[in-house]
């Protein structure tokens, strides 16, 4: 099993550019999450989804958008990138919202200059 796969691993964006961070899982999990992690900090929830066609905001959604057209894929879109979005982004998936373990991708390190 591949688990949770994120692409790209690294990316440098210029201010104002846009990009999509890809996330796919092959475990048939309904729940998927996007987190950001700043240096020395914990994970902040950006967006989450409880199934295909359903998404909702987390703690820090501003500047991001998501979609969930299939169970497997949960892309994160950054519009008009800003330096404050420099961070490491993690995608995760699970069968439930807290009653089962979450599986994480390897992360995407994004720098906005």
């Amino acid at each position, binding site marked *: 099993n591949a688990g949770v796969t994120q692409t790209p691993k690294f990316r440098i964006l210029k201010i104002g550019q846009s990009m999509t961070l890809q996330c796919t899982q092959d475990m048939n999990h309904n729940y998927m999450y996007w987190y950001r992690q700043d240096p020395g*900090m*914990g994970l902040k929830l950006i967006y*989450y989804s*409880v199934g295909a066609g359903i998404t*909702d905001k987390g703690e820090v959604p501003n500047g991001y958008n998501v979609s969930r057209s299939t169970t497997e894929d949960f892309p994160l879109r950054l519009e008009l990138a800003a330096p404050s979005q420099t961070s490491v982004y993690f995608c995760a998936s699970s069968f439930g*919202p807290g009653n089962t373990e979450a599986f994480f991708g*390897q*992360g995407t390190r994004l720098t906005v200059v």
Partner: protein
Amino acid sequence: SQKIEQNSEALNIQEGKTATLTCNYTNYSPAYLQWYRQDPGRGPVFLLLIRENEKEKRKERLKVTFDTTLKQSLFHITASQPADSATYLCALDGTGNQFYFGTGTSLTVIP
């Protein structure tokens, strides 16, 4: 929303000793609380899950306690080894199917 606090100071202990990490939360009590390990440059990896009606959970050298009155979970690593050096995160479910993480505690086990 839920606020989760972990030891902000890094924890250094001697090999063979027991490491104890703390996770405190405010507001409502979660139904589940989880602990994860994160190594530098990697995503978190699940270690243990404990339910609100469970006082204690063990897995090999790991032990987790859950005190809903104190709103606190303790995570213990007994007979610690240098390979246990990592950041440890607690996580819990929130309202509306959300899943929150604490800030993490960095543990270094000194040989």
